[in-house]
């Protein structure tokens, strides 16, 4: 694999490129758009494993951190929503350059998926698979704020409940945003059914993950909420989400 900084040198993004094991003969590539902030922590390892899984199957894979997240440059206190949309374009182009594959597929997790669809690269994408994308930004922000509040009083977390005033302004779950960004997040609306990709397939609330029976290059898949409240359950805030079974299924989508 190849950890690297790419994009603009003044504020580069951090990504990890996984070359196709055995050579690039499949001529396929997948960009992984990870979640942000706290959800980034909770999905880091599964996403890394997913990238390796696809790489072993002969795919080029690039996973990256959005600006202000992980090892990428940038500060949530200064970022705009459009910066993240730009990040998707940068990462998409980077993977095209490295792999030589003209049309890249995308796997987007949570807000990463939403950003992928809203970016100007969406129409170019070969195939899109989304895992529990954020459809209503307002609900998402409210959920994060609620979780933040719950954690302040969680006795498993602190010896004594913290006062809300102890938090930074615009802090949610340990990450400090700027007000405009929170407003922009709140106004995000993603109408899955109106997405222009052909043969959009939706899966939700099923105990048994669906098995892809037919590979179609035009089919895109959205996995809606699988485990209710998993992302918003404070008690599970330390859990890694995305199971191996889920990842294997998702890999098959490509």
């Amino acid at each position, binding site marked *: 694999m190849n950890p690297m900084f790419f994009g603009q040198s003044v504020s580069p993004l951090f990504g990890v490129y996984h070359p196709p*094991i055995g050579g690039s003969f499949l001529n396929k590539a997948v960009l992984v758009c990870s979640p942000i902030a706290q959800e980034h922590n909770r999905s880091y390892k599964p996403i890394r494993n997913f990238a390796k899984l696809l790489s072993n199957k002969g795919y080029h894979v690039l996973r990256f951190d959005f600006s202000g997240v992980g090892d990428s440059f940038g500060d949530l206190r200064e970022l705009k929503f459009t910066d993240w949309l730009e990040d998707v374009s940068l990462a998409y182009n980077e993977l095209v350059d490295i792999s030589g594959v003209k049309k890249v597929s995308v796997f987007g997790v949570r807000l990463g998926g939403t950003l992928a669809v809203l970016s100007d690269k969406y129409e170019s994408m070969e195939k899109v698979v989304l895992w529990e994308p954020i459809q209503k930004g307002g609900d998402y922000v409210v959920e994060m704020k609620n979780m933040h509040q719950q954690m302040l009083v969680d006795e498993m977390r602190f010896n004594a409940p913290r006062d809300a005033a102890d938090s930074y302004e615009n802090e949610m779950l340990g990450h400090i945003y700027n007000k405009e960004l929170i407003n922009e997040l709140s106004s995000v609306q993603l109408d899955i059914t109106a997405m222009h990709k052909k043969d959009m397939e939706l899966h939700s609330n099923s105990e048994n993950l669906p098995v892809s029976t037919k590979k179609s290059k035009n089919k895109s898949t959205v996995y809606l909420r699988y485990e209710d409240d998993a992302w918003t359950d404070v008690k599970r805030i330390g859990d890694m989400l995305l199971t191996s079974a889920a990842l294997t299924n998702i890999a098959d989508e490509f």
Partner: protein
Amino acid sequence: MHTKSELKNEFGNPDEEVYVFPTTYPQKQLWFLNQMSPDSPAYNIPFAYDIIGILDTDALRDAINEIIRRHETFRTTFSDNETGPVQLVSKLLKIDIPVIDMSGKDEAAIKEYIHTNSIRPFQLESGPLIRAELIKQDEKYFILFLNFHHIILDHISIVQFAEELEKLYGAYKENKSTPLVEPELQYADYTVWQECWQSHEKLEPKLSFWNELLTDRSDYLDISTDFKRPSIQKMNGREYNLWFPASLLDKLKKLSRSESVSMFIALLAGFSIILSRYTSQNEISVGTPFANRGIQPELEKVMGCFINTVPIFMDLEGDPSFRDVLARVRKVVFGANAHQEVPFEMIVESIKPKRETSYNPLFQVGFTFQEPPMEIFLSDCKVKSQRLHNDAAKFDILAWLWESEDGIRGLLEYSTDLFEYETIERFASHYQVLLESAVEQPDAPISQLRAISKKERDLMIDLWNDTTRDFKDSTGIHGCFEEQVRNFESKSAVECEGVSLSYLELNNRSNQLANYLIELGVNSGDFIAVSLKRSADMLVAILGILKSGACYIPLDPEYPDERLFYMLDDSGSKYLLLQDHLLEQYAKYTGKKISIDGDWNKIKEQDITSPCVKIKASDLAYIIYTSGSTGKPKGVMVPHHAAVNFLKSMAVEPGLTEQDKLLAVTTLSFDIAVLELYLPLTVGGTVVIATAEEASDGDDLAELITENNITVMQATPATWRLLFSSRWKGNSSLKALCGGEAMPSDLVGDLLVHVGELWNMYGPTETTVWSTCYKVTDPDAPILIGKPINNTKIYILDKHLKPVPMGVPGEMFIGGDGVTSGYLNMDELTTERFIPNPFDSDNRIYRTGDIVRHKADGNIEYQRRVDNQVKVRGFRIELGEIETVLLKQSNISQAVVVVREDTPGDPRLVAYYIPDADSSITATEMRKSLRQELPDYMIPQHMVEMEEFPLTPNGKVDKKAFPSPFISSTVDNEIVVPRDFAEKKLAAIWNEYLGFGIENISIYDNFFDRGGHSLLSMQVIAKIRELTGTKLNPRVMILSTLEHIAPQCGFIETQTEKTEKSRGFFSMLSSLFTKK
């Protein structure tokens, strides 16, 4: 010097049967080699003698056993201990010399028997290391068979053996006592003396000579082989008998005398020159044995292995004359002679060349000029020696020559793992011709000396280039198409995305376009750029341009604008044929734009009859731009006659008929598209054009092949791999053409299974698409590029434009009808690359930059490039062009671009760069900048920032030492300390001998890479054997890492050791609770 009595005191009881002595350096080396390959007969020295007459067999037996008694070396076996291998000398040894009755057996059976015994391995630990048999054919005809292991004697000893045998036999036959005096010294005496004398202080000045001579020199002779060099030397070999006539001997003697050199030097000089011709190297290292007895005169009569083979390093720089070479060789031989006492193994330890298991260090070829193998004389018998060989080769090639009555006789012992017999036969012939030429012209530069006979020259230059075929004249590419229109009017000519045009329709449309162009003012010879999305219109466009008498210049709309406009500017194209959707892209173009779809309403008003513009064969058909090393692409001007010759030749072989349907997948900007688009139209076939998207998708390609009943497809290896990665199951009626870059060997097997016929195609754009082709049928055979196509000539020449000997790599030059008109607006480059044909002054040949060689049947085998040009996914790329553009960036101070193939078959462009101080730039930004000038396929996929570039000892950038752009999951340079008992135990042993601290030994370490050498490895192996009883093969130490060797050593943790360990653990644990 120690005497034997002193030795007995030092090493053992004088009354014991076996004495133990250290071994000499040559013996240590031979022991090591034997441990690596215990069954190898490589160091057997067999002899056979036909004895005719009355033979006293008892006298002969007694004589041989008396020699054994007299000389301890024959009573020696070997073993090893912690200090390494040792000699075990038995006080007494008498060998059985049986008489094998083979009366009545035929010659073949006897030969086979002798041969089997010649190659029977010796057991160095049990001995005896001398064998003798008498093979009886009748009462007056015996064959004496003798076999020795080299570890106990050398050539001088063998001669002495023969002398003593003669004298002893003569005496015993007469019932007399031995006439020989008892030897004063034995080999063991020499061994002990050598140990003292060769302590480093005494040897240091002599060792310095070798260090100075050999450090930082390349020690690899890159001689082309017939077979791939095995990763581990197998040492299988054979001999070729060589003879140079007396006339040559006389001339050589005369020249040698006049230059005060010996015949040895004269022949060695010739040998080094012919090796230089074979390798294109000017520094040649040849191993030569020295007797190594001169330091002590009393050693002259001692039998044993004294010989020391050292490198003779010859420098042929500056194209000296043969006379000069003689002087140079004399100087180096004298130097080697004066320092011959330094054992070869010590030189290797000191120089520390990179150790490879596939070839010998310091030299891979050997040369010796000495008397023939021992002749023996037995009174009252006529004795004639048979030449035996042990089926082994110690070097790649060993030349053993001697003077005989009828000239120079000799043997070329060669590795059959590397060479075929015919190759060595040719080598001998080339050597002879070179010597003949040298004595004729001793003052001429050696580059002017002949090395090939007239017969060979005529074969390569004339016979193999006799490719003349009289193709019916056609008026250009479009003329070839028009010839077919009459016969196939209604047949589909071209299909793409559901659109199909018959021959008549295509002809009519292209005529209309041609007439339209003429009406616009296009004249014969004008350049018209064409930039189109792939479609049936593409053929209408091109044929229309050609019919108008103009020349087309393809522009791929995917290229960066700067490159496109450079090509438009450079060509001075006044017209641009494109489609509506590209109008915006070319908005800045100031010439006349013609949109084939947008202007079609006007175009279709034109007459459908051909404008019948007369063209000459030399008129240009198209100009293709290829990568240029100076940073700008260069336009290759291809005339009609070249393209027509190419097409007509392709119709014959690989062959295409009106039954065929060809799938065209290649961009118009790549000249191989000429075959795909036009060839079917010249024979009445059909061309199916894949769109750009379909051509990059394996599933789509598979579908196109199946649904359109495709019978022919041409593609680069990358595209074939793409097809295999899809669900395509193959098609036994498909004729597959593969070209654009070297066909990978792993792809051959896949292709042969999936298609009906497979052809390997080769050719530079400068000689019109393909110049050779080869039908591939055997996945295991070398992949050749074949023979020249019709009306094409191939010359394989050295840097002086002389034909290289057959089988020797040289640069390929191509002549004939395919040679194009050169580079547009680049007269100087044209003159440099298109040179007068040295064999036909009326014509030119093109210098390809490809290194190839002839096989014995006239087929050609590709070797490598001379320069920085590479092929990636079929695209020709000058790495220098990318580097030039990279360096234009203000914040990069140095840049090198290489092609890496970390996964076989998956080449990647990687740019290594050093940024300016205090500047930072991402790969993204660099690519963006590159993209302004370079097409996509030339953009490096990976960029690696470095602080400095690795350099060779000569100060050049060492491209092979660049790091991989990827981090592997097992990090090779990380130290992982030994984890379990076995690994720790082994690490401790290594540390004893390597001595740099056990904490610095990683499980990924290789013993030799960490500074070990063969002799040290033997000591490690002996130590392990002492501890566990397990004997490791030395190969394991060379090839494996600590983690792989440890489990094989047989280390078992004892209970005591476990207890000690657990005591340690509990002690640690308890200390945690007792700490305050």
